[in-house]
């Protein structure tokens, strides 16, 4: 069974450009999470989907970030326009059915560098 996959693995963009990160969760997993790790800091929760619905986006830094989950399958996280402080590693995780009990499985992350 394939794990959580993320694309691209690395992205280098200029300040002001737009970048879209993609996450494919484990097949059949209803819950999808986005996290971010800024260099030297903790991994921080960004938002949570149940199928195609956003449940909690309290961790989203600002309105330059837009997350979607088309048809409850893969998810995209768009940053527009990107700023220097958006650099970091963006992780995606998925869990099966219950966010209360089911283990979160993480992808390898996308390393975003904004110059």
């Amino acid at each position: 069974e394939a794990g959580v996959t993320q694309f691209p693995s690395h992205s280098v963009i200029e300040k002001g450009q737009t970048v879209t990160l993609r996450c494919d969760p484990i097949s059949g997993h209803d819950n999808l999470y986005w996290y971010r790790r800024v260099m030297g800091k903790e991994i921080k929760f960004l938002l949570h989907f149940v199928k195609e619905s956003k449940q909690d986006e309290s961790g989203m830094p600002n309105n330059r970030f837009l997350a979607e989950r088309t048809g409850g399958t893969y998810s995209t996280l768009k940053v527009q326009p990107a700023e220097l402080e958006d650099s970091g590693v963006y992780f995606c995780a998925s869990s099966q059915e219950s966010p209360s009990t089911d283990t979160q499985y993480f992808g390898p992350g996308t390393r975003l560098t904004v110059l």
Partner: protein
Amino acid sequence: AQSVTQLDSQVPVFEEAPVELRCNYSSSVSVYLFWYVQYPNQGLQLLLKYLSGSTLVKGINGFEAEFNKSQTSFHLRKPSVHISDTAEYFCAVSTMAGGGADGLTFGKGTHLIIQP
């Protein structure tokens, strides 16, 4: 709100020596505790978690952790490390066993560096 402190950013250890990675947490409510590991170029993998019951939790790859409620700690230990244990280790807490709808709260991570 919860917070996690991993005081050691790096821990160098000789191969076959024992290791302890420290984790302290703060929370006004009961929490569940997790250790994740990230090997180079891979995603975070769950090592072990404490939900309830015995305070000594055994995980994969020979790791174990002990929950100490009075000291609000959840230190990770291994009696004899191998070069393949070189990785970054993350302690995390949540108010739910699965991490919850609002996600896991992580510490900053500890790099375990195994020296031959």
